[in-house]
């Protein structure tokens, strides 16, 4: 799936800052043509891993290959391939959006005509054409994020590393981002996205790597995530009938005292079991008004890891 010449392969990467072990042991694979999500709580080593992949940080041990190239041995080679969007909003305030992009393009060795054409194209892509000549300081946070994304794409990189790209984006821009990332993946690029917005990732990502306290704890595809044990929330009118029916099938349920309405939460092994339960309830004349997974597939994994930790 991931060959030597494309995508990202990380084996047993470790990196510490003084006494702080930011990355203890991370295995990570991101094949070309797919969007790989990097998921973990704050301080779990996501940003550190992305810095390592972007050739800014060296690993203490372990092996890293980006597009088949070792970033420590040949950082320039990696930089030609990689577009990196940092989580911090570094910006040149007085430069116009166009200048931000052309300056970055120049530093990637693009010719003046090439980078100007590409910059205009990208400003259109991220819907910032009206700010082409405006200084970057007038942009809102979400617009800054989009400009930062365009900057990462300026040299048409084969590998895209995005650190929290969705933060600060309005819902419309999130949909745009999702479409853009899917398009890039479809064109054979390797896309890595770190994010906390797990429901977003459900729809964008093909696979996910979970990191916790500097270790990669789980790696799964979205299909796998969809087929794992999940919690479902069920509501019915009246709830008594639902309770009786669930008890009748020997299913354990938990009452969730939500502020607005009471709902029952059950654990289901698979989507097949969910389908069976819904059919059973409907056939038993329980007036089901809501029947849905308690969270996204990735969120389920995330929460299960979270509870493991405690």
């Amino acid at each position, binding site marked *: 799936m991931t060959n030597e010449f494309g995508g990202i392969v990380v084996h047993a990467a470790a990196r510490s*800052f*003084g006494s702080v072990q930011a990355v203890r042991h991370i295995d990570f694979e991101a094949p070309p043509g797919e969007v790989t999500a990097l998921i973990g709580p704050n301080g779990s080593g996501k*940003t550190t891993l992305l*810095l*390592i992949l*972007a*050739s*800014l*940080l*060296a690993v203490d041990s372990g092996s890293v290959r980006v597009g088949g190239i070792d*970033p*420590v041995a040949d*950082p*320039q*080679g990696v*930089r*030609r*391939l*990689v577009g*990196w969007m*940092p*989580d*911090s*909003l*570094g*910006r*040149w*305030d*007085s*430069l116009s959006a166009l*200048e931000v992009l052309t*300056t*970055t393009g*120049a*530093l*990637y*060795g*693009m*010719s003046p005509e*090439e980078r100007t054409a*590409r910059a205009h*194209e*990208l400003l259109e*892509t*991220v*819907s910032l054409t009206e700010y082409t000549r405006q*200084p970057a300081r007038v942009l809102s946070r979400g617009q800054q994020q989009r400009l930062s994304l365009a*900057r990462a*794409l300026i*040299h*048409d*990189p*084969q590998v895209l590393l995005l650190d929290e790209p969705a933060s600060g984006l309005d819902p419309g821009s999130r949909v*745009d*981002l999702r*479409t*853009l990332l899917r*398009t*890039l993946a479809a*064109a054979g690029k390797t896309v890595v996205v770190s994010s906390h917005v797990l429901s977003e990732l459900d729809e964008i990502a093909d696979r996910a790597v979970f990191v916790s306290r500097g270790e990669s704890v789980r790696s799964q595809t979205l299909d796998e995530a969809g087929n794992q044990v999940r919690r479902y929330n069920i509501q019915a009118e009246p709830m008594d009938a639902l309770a009786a029916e669930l008890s009748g099938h020997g299913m354990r349920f938990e009452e969730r005292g939500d502020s607005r309405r009471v709902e029952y939460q059950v654990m289901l092994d698979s989507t097949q079991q969910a389908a069976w339960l819904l059919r059973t309830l409907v056939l038993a004349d329980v007036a089901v008004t809501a029947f849905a997974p308690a969270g996204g597939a990735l969120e389920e994994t995330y929460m299960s890891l979270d509870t493991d930790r405690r």
Partner: protein
Amino acid sequence: MSVKMQQPPQMADERTLSTRSAVGTVFGLEMRQRLRGRAWYIMLAVWFVVIAAVFLLALATMGSYMDIGPMLFDLVVGFVLFFGLLVAPGLSANAVNGDRAAGTLAVLQVTLLTPGQLLAGKWLASWVGSLAFLVLSAPFIFWALALGGVPASEAFISLGMLALELGLVCAIGVGVSAIANRPLFSIVATYMLVALLSLGTLITFGLSTALVMEEAEVTTSYYSYPMPAENLDDQSPEPQPGDPECTTETFVQPVAHTERITWMLAANPFVVVADAVPYSRSAADAGQSGDFGYVENYRPPGVMEGISQQVRNFQAGPDYNVTCAESQGLARDVDDKFPIWPLGLLLQSLLAGGLLLLGYRRLRTPVRRLAQGTRIA
């Protein structure tokens, strides 16, 4: 959002970044930000007002001198150097860590830009930024020149040396800014280094003279006015001075062998500039001892020329034979010693180069060792 997937005209892995283009881009980036900010213009305005005030004040107070051109010229050069040493650290010493604080350094580092190109671009931009201050003082330099008495060669060498000194201070500032994490610290550290060069060298030199004191026989001459004994009884209210005589005495006294420690002064920016300029004194204002012990046609040296004379004096070592002319304040006739300014430039360049080298090592990526409490991005 949709992104065109057409193959770029150039394949991505064929792109290379030439050093010229890299340095030019960083320079352009810095200059654009500086020109669009307000701070630089305010500093330029303040500078212009202060130089103008000093110049006009000097012009007014020294108006009584016959030949004020060289004095004023010297004063302006000295003052511009003094102010330049104050301004250049401010323009250069946050070049790199300012970007680090703003989160834009990593964005540059992740491109094909190398640390050397980054430092070169930053240095060039801060140098050009501080040269603007020199350009702004040019009207006064040329005004002083127009008053006459200063050959154009002296003026242009002075300007060249000023530009060079600003460049060196900027290099020191950029180097420190790449080493230190916080802009405030690096600016203060750069000021300290400039103070070390300007004042520290003087203090070291002064303290070291005690170490090079030796006893030596010194012949001292001075003019005296013999008062004939009969004059004491003279009733005339004004004593008639006789012809002054040059009296010579020889003592054994401690002398400082300054020629052994003058090199300590070499790295002083004022010494470098003063020493590099060939001061030409026409025979007319070189001064000569008049018949009556008065010095005629003597023009006292300006600030910078004075420094130059003093340094040459130190280089020559103790004066074992103080002539009568010297006792009148005329410059001692010192054999042309080797110029000291190349040594000064060398020492300053070594300091700047060393700091830039350390900065370069801090900017290399992928980073292996990261200073405590810093983030890359």
